């Protein structure tokens, strides 16, 4: 599988990272180097092998479905780059 500049641009878009057009060829090259390395996995016979979902055989813990936290608005907002009137502020999302 070889990645061209268009694919690199598409991946950057999906990842929400702005990449300038002139940086795309180098980025595509890096992707191809890494993916070339990953291609080795095709040598492995994985027929009938389950994909790992949990490295330890433990069942995930459950807790009672109750409210056990909250009322921390100032703390939640304290690190926001732009917080106003008790909310996170962002650029206009809809016209």
């Amino acid at each position, binding site marked *: *599988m070889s*990645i061209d500049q268009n694919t*690199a641009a598409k*991946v*950057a878009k*999906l*990842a*929400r*990272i*702005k*990449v300038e057009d002139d940086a795309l060829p180098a*980025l595509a090259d*890096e*992707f191809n*180097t*890494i*993916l070339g*390395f*990953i*291609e*080795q*996995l*095709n*040598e*492995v016979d*994985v027929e009938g*092998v*389950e*994909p*790992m*979902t*949990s*490295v*330890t055989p*433990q069942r*995930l*813990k459950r*807790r009672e479905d109750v409210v056990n936290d909250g009322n*921390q608005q100032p*703390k*939640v907002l*304290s*690190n*926001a*780059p*732009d917080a106003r009137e008790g909310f*996170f502020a*962002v*650029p*206009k*999302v809809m016209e």
Partner: protein
Amino acid sequence: MTDLNKLGLAEARDLLRKGETTSVELTQSCLTAIDAAGALNAFVHKTPELAMERAKAADERLKGDDAPAMCGLPIGIKDLFCTKGVDSQAGSRILEGFKPEYESTVSQNLIDNGAVMLGKLNMDEFAMGSSNETSVYGNAVSPWRRGNDDAELTPGGSSGGSASAVAADLCLAATGTDTGGSIRQPAAFTGTVGIKPTYGRCSRWGVVAFASSLDQAGPMTKSVRDAAIMLEAMCGHDVKDSTSADLAVPNFEAMLTGDIKGKKIGIPKEYRMDGMPGEIEQLWADGTAMLKAAGAEIVDISLPHTKYALPAYYVIAPAEASSNLARYDGVRYGHRATLEAGDGITEMYEKTRAEGFGHEVQRRVMIGTYVLSAGFYDAYYNRARRVRTLIKKDFEDVFAAGVDAILTPATPSAAFGLGEMTDADPVQMYLNDVFTVTVNLAGLPGISVPAGLDAQGLPLGLQLIGKPWEEGDLLNTAYALEAAAGFVAKPGKWW
């Protein structure tokens, strides 16, 4: 008493108990060492006032007879741990100015145990790197040098600041985290001890996430005994991390008898790599002989899927990272790009993440995005998870056959120079983790023990891999290896 900063945890603890020193004296000694070590760039956020406050409280607590093991002991905390009210940036620009309103469970456990935080330690950005060269703070520098050559060397990564600080005696010990080798490789590069416990031993809550199915915290220390003391203080069940194990934490230090008679130590043939330096081969053979002389039985074993661990890791870890790092959107914390008129929310995300993430992090997030994207999910991500199942089974088969621990080199070389890998392709840097990454994929405990010096006078480490949840037994084998290797070298002070 002078040079209190050069003590290990166990020695300092014992002196405190005998009333021969105080936490305030220990802490002051470390703070002085830190201030004189700017050239190492290990401590990136210093917290001297907080440290003195906690040291005084620890001295009060030590007057009673129920002070916990780490009471009064000054340590460094990797920048990946969220520490309440103290900058926690994960070595990234995108978290510039972030001061958490909460404390990670591991660092809280250490506070509860009386430990004194001296400050936050340098690291590769989001723990992605093997040389501490991807940090927004600039490189951490190893206190070690090649003979009289004054070229700066890497302390390893991603826990490079932790390794440098412990090796240079800026603190008694430090926390690290390990996703593919980020505790064990820097420990090996700096002549220190580092253990990554079984996945689930340490809570991940409040530790900035890189690859959640692989990340584990652990101690980086000056001796195996210190690692036992500090690991016990760090780990334990936590309801805030659903993957944290609800198992009792043993007294690891009490398990250090040094007696390994009859233990079966496996030597995996697949770890004998082409082009491995003769010095590493020799170190491994020496370590094997030491364990044999201590009464262990040496057996040749096979871990047939070893070769596929790194490629599987470089699918799984970036995939999880791309998901975990989606939260850095410029809305809730950290950096937000300055926007131009007309920019909407998508431009805000894209510019913020382009400015906030460094090159290596961007690359991994995009690789992760690619392997998870429609059409490639099965070919890459699911295949890598299948291979991971096989890698874990390799270890299970060996342990089922009676092997107690596995001995391998910790790294394929000694520390390299900062900047020496700049022109190499990314895969060359990834090869640093070739001996350690299998352990993360299988969720096992692994420890790096300093075992010798290369011809240039740089430390080399050996890795022991243990059975799940048997850190105590693993630490004991490491303790026997440490005693036999008798590693006492320290870097000459140039900083």
